[in-house]
């Protein structure tokens, strides 16, 4: 084959590649614009007055104009909702990670009769849609006298978070080497001391993954507060938003700043920790 012919085929291949990659790049850019536009419009609108939003919904706002945020700060229960969300999510996460690590440690480090059955018991909770059991849950919370009490949310979230946490962490803890543990045991360390001082520092990466996988759905949950909580002062952010959106239906500037304020914490954390978020939230689905 002549040199010219080879060149010709090479060039054709190059063009084909560019054409395909170019098309894929266009798809990606178009999609990214579609993904970000609603969020950008929301943030921009948060700094506009309602007439400004109606007149130029896409225009750049004057970012020093924070009247909407002041209104939310001074006139609504918004900060209370935000604080409640922090309390409920924080308490649930502490319980999930503590109890989840305990169970995973027992299942992952010790061989005992019934351990595989107990693991199965936890895993069964992975696939069951708990929303459908809301009636008995409602009755249970009533019997425990914690309806209209944030403990009801914390308990349900903890129970819902345990299956994934036990699943992720048992696998991780099982894969840790035995040498350190055995050496400590020879030195006469107690089982509790081995777990606390030697093994726990090693399981932190798995705790981060399990933590992120649970923190996002708990922070965002709307269904359980809707059923369990009536008192406005106890509402979490997603539930409080429904009250807030109902009160300010015509004041779009305030509505958009309320939405912006509620998304801001999670968006900021996501931008910093996007890798861990993606790994954590898809960890159940990616083997």
């Amino acid at each position: 084959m002549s040199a010219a012919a080879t060149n010709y085929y090479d060039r054709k291949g190059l063009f084909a590649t560019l054409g395909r990659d170019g098309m894929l790049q266009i798809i990606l850019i178009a999609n990214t614009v579609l993904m970000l536009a609603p969020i950008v419009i929301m943030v921009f609108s948060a700094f506009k007055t309602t007439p400004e939003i109606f007149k130029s919904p896409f225009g750049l706002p004057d970012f020093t104009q924070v009247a909407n945020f002041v209104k939310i700060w001074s006139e609504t229960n918004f900060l209370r909702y935000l604080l409640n969300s922090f309390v409920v999510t924080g308490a649930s996460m502490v319980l999930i990670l503590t109890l989840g690590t305990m169970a995973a440690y027992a299942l992952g480090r010790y061989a005992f009769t019934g351990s595989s059955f107990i693991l199965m018991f936890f895993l069964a909770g992975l696939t069951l849609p708990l929303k459908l059991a809301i009636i008995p849950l409602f009755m249970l919370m009533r019997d425990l006298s914690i309806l209209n009490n944030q403990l009801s949310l914390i308990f349900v979230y903890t129970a819902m978070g345990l299956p994934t946490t036990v699943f992720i962490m048992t696998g991780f803890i099982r894969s840790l080497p035995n040498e350190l543990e055995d050496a400590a045991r020879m030195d006469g360390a107690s089982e509790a001391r081995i777990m606390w001082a030697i093994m726990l520092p090693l399981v932190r990466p798995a705790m981060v993954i399990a933590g992120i996988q649970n923190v996002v759905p708990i922070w965002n949950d709307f269904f359980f507060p809707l059923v369990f909580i009536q008192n406005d002062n106890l509402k979490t952010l997603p539930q409080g938003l429904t009250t807030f959106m109902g009160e300010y239906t015509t004041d779009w500037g305030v509505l958009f700043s309320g939405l912006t304020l509620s998304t801001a914490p999670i968006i900021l954390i996501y931008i910093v920790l996007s890798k861990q978020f993606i790994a954590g939230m898809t960890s159940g689905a990616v083997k």
Partner: protein
Amino acid sequence: MPQLRMTGRGLWITALIVPPLAFVALFIVYPIVSAFAYAFFDWQGLKRLDFVGLENFHTVLFVEPYRSWTINAFKNNVIVFFALMVLQNGLGFILAYALWRELPGARFHRIAVFLPVVLSTIIVAYLFKLFYHPLFGVVNITLKGIGLGWLAQPWLGQSGTALGSIIVAQAWHMVGFPTLVFLAGMQRIPSEILDAVRMETESEWVKITKIVWPLVAPSATIVFTLLFVGAFNWFELPYIMGGLDGSPFGSTDVLGLYFYRTAFGNVSAGQQDFGLGSALAVLIFIFIAIVAGVITTRLRAREIQL
């Protein structure tokens, strides 16, 4: 294997395992088991009355008006599932394929596509509700701006477009999830296989249909099953965007709303019925379990072990 004795190590293991087990038993297993029992009783408010056998099931399936409500909600769930299969999982596969090529900016695109996934569904619902506003929403304003003003319409206010509009909001919210699950599947395809394919064919189509698609089968199994369970549990978006009654005229009513309304009552009807609600919950539960089981086993069968 040492027997579980209530001394030393046995006691230690028990102390570790019992508290977490108690939580799962009390707040997951017990309520789900009770849900089945509740469905066989007559209820008055929060009070359990007589055992009525299968009567609650009979009512929600065969007695009007429950029968048409059940059928209507179920039909809408089926529409939601198939529409999201295309909009969410189909688009997700294409986006994953594009991201997989590691073109310039891929990292940024990956972060952007997953960003809506971390948002609260309630926020997505309100945001799109404002966007779909007939007069001031950006959707109609954009259409008018690009000369497609005749397409502008009250998206959430008419039966023909309401459900579709909510489905689009859901796809925007969640498309990043299947995208990144598929992407992880593609990244696990060994490079030797891809090199071998490059020698055999130039066709992108052959490569996708004969190599990539079969090899990401495990991702597809998971994504399809999760979408199915999610579609038949759909609640938040239609609740905020269509309302508890599935307005307009039940066009956005889905099983999740219908179940909630039956169990806890709504403003207009006010009547709450735990018996009928539980019967619905049990039926939805069984339906999801069976179909999800079938989907999983069917799709698992076509997975290839590498």
